[in-house]
């Protein structure tokens, strides 16, 4: 094999192999996929007993089963009790979890996992988190630019076929969501890959 073709074969083969195997691992291994992400955190705000912080979101998939919130427990000092709840748009309590400052790092993501909620697609939900204990050092919860809670919500994939479609769809949307980067990246790929194809075909 010509030496100038070998690096191109390696590049194409390794590039495709890594992406393919990674997507395969994600498709086969992942049970809980991202539904809604508003995890960009602008700041941490303290919250006090009796004053819950809330955030609403509309689920994009059925079987919502995980909500992740961002907390900050300065010096791991707070060991008080907290309550997480998830309610429907009508105010029906769907999920309630108690958790402790012991579970909260500085900072850390705290995961609330519950039985998948069927028929959640298109439904509006309200997340709330409140401090229960009095006289504990302040704890911060992440909020986004709009002042609402920073959070991520995940859903349980129904079956492999739907999971594959979701995986590819999410990936495509994320790529196309940054049009400038995607355009420049694709251009660089196209130019280099084109050079590689030219070299390979020239020698054949």
């Amino acid at each position, binding site marked *: 094999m010509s*030496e*100038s073709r*070998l*690096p*191109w074969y*390696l*590049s*194409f083969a*390794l*590039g495709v192999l*890594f*992406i393919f195997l*990674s*997507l395969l*691992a*994600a498709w086969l*291994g*992942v*049970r*809980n*996929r*991202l539904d809604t*992400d508003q*995890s*960009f*955190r*602008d700041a941490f705000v303290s919250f006090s007993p009796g004053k819950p912080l809330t955030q609403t979101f509309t689920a994009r998939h059925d079987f919502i089963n*995980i909500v992740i919130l*961002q907390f*900050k427990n*300065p*010096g791991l000092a707070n060991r008080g009790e907290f309550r997480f709840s998830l309610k429907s748009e009508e105010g029906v309590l769907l999920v309630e979890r108690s958790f402790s400052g012991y579970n909260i790092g*500085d*900072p*850390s*993501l705290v995961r609330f996992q519950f039985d998948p909620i069927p028929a959640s697609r298109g439904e509006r939900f309200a997340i709330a988190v409140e401090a229960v204990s009095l006289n504990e050092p302040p704890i911060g919860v992440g909020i986004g630019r709009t002042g609402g809670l920073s959070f*991520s919500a*995940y859903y349980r994939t129904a079956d492999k076929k739907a999971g594959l479609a979701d*995986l590819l769809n*999410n*990936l495509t949307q*994320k*790529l196309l*969501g*940054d049009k400038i*980067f*995607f355009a420049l*990246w694709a251009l*660089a*790929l196209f130019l*280099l*890959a084109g*050079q*590689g194809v030219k*070299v390979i075909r020239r020698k054949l």
Partner: protein
Amino acid sequence: MSIIKKIVVFPCLQIFLAAALLRIILAPFFFHPDIKTIFYISQFFANGVINIYEYLAQNPEKLILGPFVYPPLAYFFFGSIFPLIRALAGPAFGQWLAMGNEAVAVPHIFRYLFLIKLLPFAFEFLVGGLLVKILKNSRERQLALLFWFFNPVNIYAVILMGQFDVVPAFFTLLALYWAVGQKKPLWGAVALGIGGAMKSYPLLFLPFLAIVCGRDWRQQIKLFILGVAPYVIFTLPFVTSPSFRADTLISGLSQRMFLLGLDIGFGERILVVLLALVILFLLAAWRSGSKQDLAAYFLAVPLFLLAGSHFHPQWLIWAMPFLAIFIAKENKLFLPVVILLMGWLGTILLFDDKFLALGLLSPLDPGILFLPPLRELLSKIFQPSLLQSIFHTLFSASAIWIVCLVVAGKQHERI
């Protein structure tokens, strides 16, 4: 010759272009938190913070991703390029850096990952350029470059993880090039010192450069002092800082290289890695004057370090430029290198850290972070510690064998 013409006729251009393609394909989609932590901390340099160690100690609310554990030049270096990266990344880049290690679902994540890996890529290509200059034989150049750009260690540690160990590795190869190729050992020593001021391991190469390249004991001492000087210049202003001493001087490497020991009683241990390095140094002193040996010692030092310690995956980058040189010259190194890399890969994939295996894929699907580490998955079939130990033993055996070949065996005569 015009610049365009120089580029077109550049030896092994196709290898460089193909390597660039692979990096462009993979860089946006794989993530490890270490490089994000470095960029998060380096942004304070743009705000005028010089003593980052004291700054983080006095502002614990900023210490959200851990302390800065590298020597000061690494901070200044990343801090200098931070404004450019931030300008290209966009206004939300700083917020992303301040988020936790699992912040992979944010918009523009692919852009961020690509940009923060540009610096390691640039130094990978600089190492490639140095390999072209060091190896005069066309076939050796091609083999060395193919190995350098497409080996599993570079792919894993530089492309997927974005680790910056390739930056001090560049300085160690530059030291070799200047000391042996250009017959400028003083510059070589300074290069090691600059590399050491970014990550301390190049300082371990300095005694070998001094002893091999110094004409007499005076020049050997001079080379050593000049080599240490950049490190001292950059670290001296911070030595009085307790945080600097705690976080950087007592680094992961310096602790781990002293862990492997033979207990001889009464609280004493023979430190095996140090023993090996001293014996190697004495061999270099015995054979001093043969500058062609220097590449062998520069390869041997990191291989001994890794063979005898619980290494971080990216540490093998330290040896790769020199391994590329030797594997280009001797086909018989192929088998021990394959075993070395298998041992390395098996060892690191069994670390109890999800970001060293499946976690790397999290930008493709954040749900992958819910999966346990590979080690935990395998524990149902095999005892992970034993399996990891087997892989590390394979690695150590082949590392030591490679050192024997390049330093003392027939390979030495061919260089």
